[in-house]
């Protein structure tokens, strides 16, 4: 039997909203387009809770492509993904600062 994969920590749960495709973050009880409101899992147990919530929200037809993303918490409290791919996903197109969350929520 293989060992269950351990989620990298700390982590947040992000997905694309089914209706409009926008990137959304799981807060303690719902989905928000604002990354600052993302619930951060600091231990394995809470990361697994988040992961299960992603699967449940997918099954409830709320979101698609839900996944846990490991982050570093910036001094201003913003969870910043450790991988550049998710950093762009959270910010928006890097050549268009007028679009995406960098415009809507001041994500840097």
């Amino acid at each position: 039997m293989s060992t269950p994969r351990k989620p990298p920590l700390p982590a947040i749960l992000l997905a694309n909203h089914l209706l409009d495709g926008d990137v959304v973050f799981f807060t303690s009880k719902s989905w928000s387009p604002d990354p600052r409101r993302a619930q951060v899992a600091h231990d394995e147990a809470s990361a697994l809770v988040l992961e299960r919530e992603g699967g449940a929200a997918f099954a409830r037809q709320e979101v698609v492509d839900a996944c846990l993303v490991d982050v570093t918490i910036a001094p201003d409290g913003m969870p910043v993904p450790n991988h550049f791919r998710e950093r762009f996903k959270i910010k928006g197109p890097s050549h268009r600062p007028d679009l995406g969350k960098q415009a809507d929520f001041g994500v840097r």
Partner: protein
Amino acid sequence: MYRYDEFDEAFVRDRVAAFRAQVERRLSGSLTEDEFKPLRLKNGVYLQLHAYMLRIAVPYGTLASRQLRQLALIGERYDRGYGHFTTRQNLQFNWPKLRDIPDILELLADVEMHCIQTSGNCIRNVTADPFAGVAADEIEDPRPVAELIRQWSSAHPEFDYLPRKFKIAVTGANHDRAAIAAHDIGLQIVRNDIGAVGYRLLVGGGLGRTPMIGRELRAFLPKNALLTYLTALMRVYNLEGRRDNKYKARVKILVHEIGIAEFRDRVEAEFAGLDRAAHDADPAELARIAAYFAPPAYEKLPATSPAFESAQRANPIFAAWVEANVFAHRQPGYAAVTISLKGIGDAPGDATSAQMRAVADLADAHSFGEIRVTHAQNLVLPNVKQADLFALWRKLGEAGLAEGNVGLITDIICCPGLDYCSLATARSIPIAQSIARRFAAPERQREIGPVSIKISGCINACGHHHVGHIGILGLEKRGEESYQITLGGDASKNAAIGEIIGPGIPADAVPDAVERLVAVYLAERQAGEDFIAAVRRLGLAPFRAAFAQEARHAAP
């Protein structure tokens, strides 16, 4: 231009209604994502990094002004005021909401457009020479056969679930401006020894993770046999193409594995067994299609326009734009104009809704209402009077569309990359922007001459990097974006795959690396020798050496 008949119209409207019902079922929860995904992909709807993306087919890159205006409206009403023209002559919107897409499709159907077969394992939009019907070096206009293939391949019951996607490009000229050797099937209209017009067929070209140049399947196929022959070819592929591994599923892999001779034998055997009467195109239908592409009502004009000549003498910036962006027309007194969507610092291929409207208005005023999309992500006004060129150029300038860089080093082909695409491994647009800014000076671009830089943000090669004179591939290396440079690729008649010239370099080193490659060329070129010719003559060694200096310099 081709116009829908009542069957086309009913078919597209039915598909919009079907997709509307599918979206409703998805939103109500009666379709799961797994069930819905293939349905949305059949209608050109992808999910990208930040949002859904809608890919709209522009058949063989031909647009009417009313269609471009409708795209402008959709961009404004349902997107963020711009669209992206792709290397397959299509248009993508990057921010549509799923719930709005049925309404967008309805607006598209109003102007005889759709998103059918812009995704999925089917025959995709047929692409063609953007100068079709106007090029002086053309044997025949490729648009009628492109339209015939479009009709034949649309919702074709037998070829709707192929092992993998399938791309066809057509040219009617000897100079390949449609990159036919980089397609699953490349079709070239040719004349045989006795003067009959037919097709030369290439098969098994394609880029992606296993780049290959198409091989000649038939040197000459009589025109009337085309659909039967394509049926035979598609049958062999559909039956024998691999379905166990998506990375080995394109027809190029089948051709490579069994060899072109064996592949040809199988196609010819299938062809011989088919009932031609049942498969060949109906000549009456062919004539009906061809009639839509009759030349417009050209005026009888002298071959040259004195006003145009004097405007060039008086205005060197205009003259430079003419030199790069204006293409010789077969009709005396006319020209074909390429409108660059590569403004310095802009995202290649992007056009705002305002720019789309400006181009549509200019097409109405100067080009019989017709526009073409090029695989190099520019637009073409195919039928402009030479005497109108100066006025046209000034109006293009007002719309921010007068960049005179077509075919030059800043006319960069570039996929959306990691700024939009969920498959991408690195960004490509900022690389294009930084190279364009580095080489922005028009006189320097002219001094360097024709060079094609093509950038892809992943191995799937939507930016055609393998066939760029200088190809740039964005990858991930140790958690950072890294760029692999290839040299010697060619998308023209002399199609070739570029070779890697050294280790990957970081994004900020790319403009310097390009600079070093260009410096080798400038130092070594012979009189009149352009970049790719010099690369072929010199070989890669001097370029590798220059690149190695940059790679060492850029090493962390």
